[in-house]
């Protein structure tokens, strides 16, 4: 039988088997499991068949809770069903998991195990989610490698049918789910061999059907529940042996042997590690090395964690064992030990209790934690654990992989401990997300994996930022299966695809002595050396690196590749690494380019091939002089002016050295300082915008649209220019009502992402040369020094006093300092301008509850965060709870504020004799929330606190604490459409249904942007999205109309790029409305598929076509006897088609489903007209005025 090898990642390895063995899949995106669901959706759309020759039915639900419900139902009705999830998603499935297990239902779910959010969210891998399911009754089956994921998926699907126990098959998120590895692929016939058709039939016969009616899901009482619950025991008792038999059958078919607990090591080992997941691979690799050094050690890989078979475990344990270390990839605070440790202790104890124990009575067991949130787990750490086991009093409940200088639980380990064999090629590549480095490396792995006998492994480390993101690729190639589930630290090949990285990161740290170093540099082979930082030169000399350089950016430009240097650098890698025979390398690259890019079009193929051809002419070996010649030092990570915490903690993380920070460096409750993004000067833009004061009409559209707050406007006293740098630009302020002021638009040159949105939206053109506008892109390096000085001076100019602004509008709003700056959002992001505006208008008194999603990631992903403070130290207080509960979370903010301000008011009244009536009156006289009033209240609070200091009473002390609550806070509930339309809709609807003063901002990108573009209920009709590959078949839900139906909710639909003043009015009205408000904000997104700098133009098209109506529904107008709804843009100016044709998400449908596309266009046009008709009718309606409540009447 021919064995088919393939090079895939863990997610695909699971999906490949699961798809072929399922009939229904209910899905919902969550990192890092989403690719499994995406593959199911894609394969289903393409008509791929399962082993029963059917296309799998795939359905996206509104949440994991919903998906679990569908799964439960589909199983009950007899379909072979699956799902995929992780982390919080898995937690949402737990209620149904109890039911599915309680009903002994054959079912497999695949979990890319991920950290559950605690003090912080983390998308990375550990077992905290899976461990939260121990009690559900599911079998928990673990895979340690990509091959095992593939195999264990098959074993799980086969075993669940036999055992009737549902399976949770899991593997480590990212480390396994995203690792690319060369594996043996199971053929359909292998799967058929493993699946017993009689058992499938039995599963179907258990289905609910009116032909054989039964009742399930009864309610039982104290008389029966207990006994009935115990009735399932025999299935759990039988389960381990069933699984082992399935594993044996699998081994008989494909040759790979698995056991419930697999032991590897010395037959007479005295020290054994027990572990599960990807860490087991590293442990095995280390044991192999230690065995060769004569150590008596071993490792038990746990595969079946639940039901935990004590017998099988004891059988697997060498009888000579004296000390066991159990490693858990989870933390259970307050427990006597982590779960696996407790299980092992129990197992050994139970065994001891039996007279016939094979285990030494003095065996010592210790437990420890490792690898939380994908923390590296290396052979050095495994070795440290074995060393610990040799000690007379080994540390129990230890940690390994971190430095715990607070509770001193961590083990010391040798960071340089290296056991990798020399016949493994290890290559590390530093690239930018947008330069295609990862794509090229994935392609290289495929070439080597599929064209040679070598095994291949690829693992990719991504940035926490979405714009200008750095990627580090770790590639291994070797003659044996690669088991190293940790990052490369001693590479034989290091490539730096961006010259600037040498200044920012310790790139050459990864190079082994004698390694090859490839650098993309904008300098020739003879001059590049002198441009290297001193540290890099020294390291090249010390390590005797072979140094190659290429000006890949020029080659890319000349061959029409733009910024994509992937093909060029890949060609260099093959040309100098020697992983492929000399004459074959270029041929193979070209073949793979043709294969990979054929579907992207012949022009793309041609340009890539041209790039390959010219690469070798431009690749040169650099002769290394032997002495350091450079006078350049690597720049400090942050400026000397940064606060201590930023220097000591944040900067270490920014430098990529966060692993070195000890426990004591961290806040213990997840509280982090605000205003840190300003210290991270990322300098990622090639070009930055420069203001032309002579052309500018001072409309400030550039500033309001800037997603990163890097274009700022300020008005200031002319006298302040005395200290300005000579090149500082300034103009007379045109708005005379704001006084005799100067006006400046200034760029933050090191923070700008170069997206170009500001230039697109600028309406002012130079009359002599209309190609130039009032703001124009210039090469950053040409203007860097002057603009840095300008920006520093600009920041030193005082911010305008909010109360001094005679009115609000687009221009005045931009004179206010943004309290959200330099976020890591995508260059040109359509969401962030709304958040920035929010902070300009209300930021100094805002509490923001942020749903999980893009806005929580660019809003709160470390190392630095964008929310900042004004000159008084005030700024938005921000937090993220979950994806699904954000409206409720924000409502909590509101209630707490209501309570405290009510208390403060009542204390104020109580203390009025001491405080004095005039001050009391100031507080209680008005509910107004104008800037002038807020400012006055702040003064009053200062005065109040002074007075309180002199009053000796408990009430005064209490009021001192809460006096600030006398100043109204602005509560904002912010999130994307995935939250508001789908997973969080229930809560959002509930919050809207009540009458609390909360403001909801929905950043509607019409897709799950953060997880990679899955369809939400906001996705428009006819748009292609993941989970809606052929175009979404139903129109987007009209959330605004649904909110309006309450009639007490302020509702607005806005599009900043199309109509900024309407947006500002909506924000002001929403915030001033004394009840719930919701603003639905059109946010262009990279998931729409066009150059983001054209976002405002596309927003205009959305509005003009009627796809995105602009309106404001203000219940206050009902009271005034006016129609509540004002429609600000009616659409109908251009056909909907004109909007649709500008975006790849629609274009894909036009290409692949042309007939469907034509229908979608017609339906979209009609839907737009229908919406507008409804709104126009509503805008004519005068609604009856509410009858006052009894309470109102009493007052």
């Amino acid at each position: 039988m021919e064995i088919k090898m393939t090079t895939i990642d863990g997610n695909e390895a699971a999906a490949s088997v699961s798809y072929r063995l399922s009939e229904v899949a209910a899905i919902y995106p969550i990192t890092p499991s989403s690719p499994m669901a995406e593959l199911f959706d894609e394969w289903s759309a393409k008509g791929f068949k399962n082993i029963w020759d059917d296309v799998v039915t795939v359905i996206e639900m509104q949440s994991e809770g919903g998906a679990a419900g569908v799964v439960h139902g589909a199983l009950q009705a007899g379909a072979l069903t699956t799902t995929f999830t992780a982390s919080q998603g898995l937690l949402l499935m737990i209620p149904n998991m109890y039911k599915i297990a309680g009903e002994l239902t054959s079912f497999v779910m695949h979990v890319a195990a991920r950290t559950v959010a605690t003090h912080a969210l983390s998308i990375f891998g550990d077992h905290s989610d899976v461990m939260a399911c121990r009690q559900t009754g599911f079998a928990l089956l673990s895979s340690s490698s990509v091959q095992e994921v593939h195999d264990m998926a098959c074993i799980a699907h086969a075993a669940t049918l036999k055992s009737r126990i549902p399976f949770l098959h899991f593997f480590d998120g990212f480390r396994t789910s995203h690792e690319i590895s060369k594996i043996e692929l199971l053929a359909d016939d292998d799967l058929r061999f493993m699946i017993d058709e009689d058992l499938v039939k039995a599963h179907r016969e258990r289905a609910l059907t009116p032909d054989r009616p039964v009742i399930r899901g009864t309610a039982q009482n104290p008389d029966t529940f207990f006994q009935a619950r115990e009735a399932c025991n025999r299935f759990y008792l039988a389960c381990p042996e069933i699984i082992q038999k399935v594993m044996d059958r699998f081994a008989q078919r494909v040759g790979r042997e698995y056991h419930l607990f697999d032991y590897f090591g010395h037959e007479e080992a005295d020290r054994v590690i027990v572990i599960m997941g990807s860490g087991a691979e590293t442990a095995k690799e280390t044991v192999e090395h230690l065995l060769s050094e004569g150590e008596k050690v071993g490792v038990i890989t746990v595969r079946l964690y639940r039901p935990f078979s004590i017998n099988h475990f004891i059988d697997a344990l060498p009888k000579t064992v004296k000390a066991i270390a159990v490693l858990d990839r989870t933390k259970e605070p307050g427990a006597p030990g982590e779960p696996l440790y407790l299980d092992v202790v129990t197992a050994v104890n139970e065994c001891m209790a039996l007279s016939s124990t094979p285990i030494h009575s003095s065996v010592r067991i210790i437990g420890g934690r490792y690898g939380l949130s994908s923390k590296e787990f290396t052979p050095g750490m495994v070795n440290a654990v074995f060393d610990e086991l040799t000690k007379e009093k080994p540390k129990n409940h230890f940690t390994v992989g971190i430095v715990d200088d607070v509770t001193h639980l961590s083990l010391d380990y040798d960071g340089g401990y290296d056991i990798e064999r020399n016949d493994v090629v290890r290559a590390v590549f530093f690239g930018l997300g947008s330069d295609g480095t990862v794509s090229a490396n994935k392609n290289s792995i495929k070439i080597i994996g599929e064209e040679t006998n070598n095994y291949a492994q690829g693992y990719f480390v991504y940035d926490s930022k979405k714009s200008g993101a750095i990627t580090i690729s770790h590639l291994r190639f070797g003659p044996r299966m690669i088991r190293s589930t940790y990052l490369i630290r001693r590479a034989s090949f290091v490539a730096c695809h961006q010259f600037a990285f040498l200044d920012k990161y310790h790139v050459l740290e990864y190079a082994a002595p004698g390694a090859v170093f490839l650098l993309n540099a904008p300098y020739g082979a003879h001059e590049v050396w002198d441009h290297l930082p001193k540290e890099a030169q020294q390291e090249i000399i010390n390590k005797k690196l072979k140094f190659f350089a290429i000006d890949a950016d020029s080659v890319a430009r000349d061959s029409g590749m733009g910024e994509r240097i992937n093909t060029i650098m890949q060609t260099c890698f093959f040309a100098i690494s020697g992983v492929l025979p000399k004459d074959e390398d270029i041929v193979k690259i070209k073949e793979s380019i043709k294969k990979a890019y054929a579907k992207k079009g012949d022009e793309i193929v041609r340009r890539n091939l041209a790039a390959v051809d010219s690469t070798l002419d431009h690749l040169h070996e650099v002769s290394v002089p032997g002495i350091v010649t450079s006078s350049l030092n690597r720049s400090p990570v942050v400026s000397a002016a940064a606060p201590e915490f930023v220097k000591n903690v944040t900067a270490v993380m920014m430098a990529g050295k966060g692993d070195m920070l000890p426990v004591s460096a961290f806040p213990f409750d997840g509280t982090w300082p605000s205003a840190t993004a300003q210290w991270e000067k990322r300098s990622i833009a090639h070009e930055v915008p420069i203001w032309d004061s002579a052309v500018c009409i001072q409309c400030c559209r550039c500033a309001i649209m800037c997603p990163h707050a890097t274009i700022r406007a300020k008005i200031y006293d002319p006298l302040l220019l005395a200290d300005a740098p000579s090149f500082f630009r300034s103009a007379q302020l045109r708005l005379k009502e704001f006084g005799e002021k100067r006006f400046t638009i200034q760029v933050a040159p090191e923070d700008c992402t170069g997206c170009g949105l500001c230039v697109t939206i600028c309406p002012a053109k130079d009359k002599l040369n209309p190609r130039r506008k009032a703001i124009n892109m210039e090469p950053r390096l040409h203007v860097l020094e002057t603009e840095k000085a300008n920006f520093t001076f600009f920041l030193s100019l005082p911010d305008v006093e909010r109360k001094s602004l005679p009115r609000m509008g687009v221009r005045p709003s931009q004179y206010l300092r943004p309290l959200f700056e330099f976020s890591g959002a995508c260059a040109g992001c359509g969401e962030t301008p709304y958040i920035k505006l929010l902070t300009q208008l209300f930021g100094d008194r805002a509490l923001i509850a942020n749903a999980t999603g893009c806005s929580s990631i660019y809003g709160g992903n470390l190392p630095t965060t964008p929310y900042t403070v004004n000159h008084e130290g005030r700024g938005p207080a921000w937090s993220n709870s979950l994806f699904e509960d954000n409206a409720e979370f924000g409502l909590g903010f509101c209630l707490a504020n209501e309570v405290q301000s009510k208390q403060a008011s009542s204390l104020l009244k109580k203390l009025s004799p001491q405080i004095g009536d005039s001050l009391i009156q100031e507080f209680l006289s008005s509910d107004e929330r104008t800037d002038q009033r807020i400012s006055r209240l702040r003064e009053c609070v200062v005065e109040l606190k002074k007075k309180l200091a002199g009053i000796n009473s408990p009430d005064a002390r209490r009021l001192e604490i809460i006096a600030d609550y006398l100043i109204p806070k602005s509560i904002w509930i912010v999130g994307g459409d995935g939250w508001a339309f789908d997973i969080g809709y229930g809560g959002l609807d509930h919050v809207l249904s009540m009458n609390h003063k909360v403001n909801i901002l929905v950043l509607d990108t019409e897709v799950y942007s953060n997880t990679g573009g899955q369809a939400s209920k906001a996705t428009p009709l006819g748009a292609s999205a993941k989970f809606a590959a052929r175009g979404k078949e139903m129109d987007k839900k009209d959330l605004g109309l649904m909110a309006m139906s309450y009639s007490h909710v302020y509702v607005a639909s806005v599009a900043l790029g199309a109509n900024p003043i309407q947006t500002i009015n909506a924000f002001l009205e929403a915030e001033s409305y004394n009840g719930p408000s919701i603003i639905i904000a059109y946010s262009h997104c990279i998931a729409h598929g066009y150059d983001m700098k054209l976002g405002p133009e596309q927003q205009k098209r959305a509005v003009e076509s009627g796809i995105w109506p602009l309106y404001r529904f203000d219940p206050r107008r009902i009271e005034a006897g006016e129609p509540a709804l004002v429609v600000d843009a009616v659409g109908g100016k251009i056909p909907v088609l004109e909007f649709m044709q500008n975006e790849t998400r629609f274009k894909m449908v036009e290409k692949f489903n042309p007939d469907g596309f034509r229908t979608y266009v017609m339906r979209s046009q009609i839907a737009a007209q229908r919406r507008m008709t409804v709104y126009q009718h509503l805008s004519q309606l005068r609604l009856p005025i509410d009858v006052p409540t009894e309470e109102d009447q009493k007052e």
Partner: protein
Amino acid sequence: MDLSTTYLGLQLPNPFIAGACQITGSLDGLKRLQDAGAAAVVLPTFFEEHIRREQLAIHSSIDYPAQSFGEALTYFVEYEKPIAGPEEYLETIHRAKKCLRIPVIASLNCLTMRGWKEYTASIEQAGADALELDFFYVSVDASESSEVIENRNIETVREVKSVVKIPITVKLSPFYTSLANFARKLEGAGVNSLVLLHRFYTPDIDIEELELIPRVEPTNPRDLLLRLRWLAIVSAQVNCTIAVQGGVYTAADAIKAIMSGAHAVQIVSAILVHGPNYISQLRHDVTQWMEQHEYESLNKMCGNMNLLHCPDPRALSRAHYITLLKSWQTGHQLKLPQMGFCR
């Protein structure tokens, strides 16, 4: 009445060909044109530049943001087929051929020799009966001489002829220094036919926004006059067949073009305005006119007003004011030509 004609080596029952436009871009439109009696159809022009740009735009919108961020390695559904390439056009040819009896002429505009060669070969393979090379090109480079451009066009024809067997025609613009000379050179390079004349799409200016706005106006009957002149001049001096395109709205327009030397008449604006069935109206009107004027066949009037046969060839070659002056000098009575150039 014999309306039959030969164009591009194809025997056509009548001279009316539906020119490249959105109607010829849909199967439904093509069928309706065939039902109306169109002798052949020219599919919408496939622009290499458009495809290239679309490929690059889609590639960058999909690939640039991909593989950058751990949570979202991609933002779009993986697709297997090229999202922007000649495939869709080739499929249109294929489908058109499957459902039509009449000849299907593809139309191509390329920027590169590679494009011309590759796409013409694919178009032939897809089943097109003939190919129209659209030489629409705006030279904006003052260093590029007319000779360079003409030689490139001639070379293109030679290269294309070397890769395909199907007949080819070249659509020409009026802006050549010596159009007849260039037409002859093309004939020498192997073209089977010519199409006169291409119409340039010209950008307009928005004086408020200081922007150029692309403007595509349908042709109008006045556009015919320029074509009549060049048909008359070129047809007298080449052997290949010629089609007229631009400005033919009525039977009279078509007759004028045929008299000037057109063997076939491409209709675009008129069917966009009146619908595909207008072809049948034109056929009817031309037949009726020929009956009334006792023309037995189209051949009898084809070229009867061209440079070789028209009563006053000078009217074709002279600008009008000189004609006027000479008329006055020779004392002849001023007589405006029937299809005067000054209207």
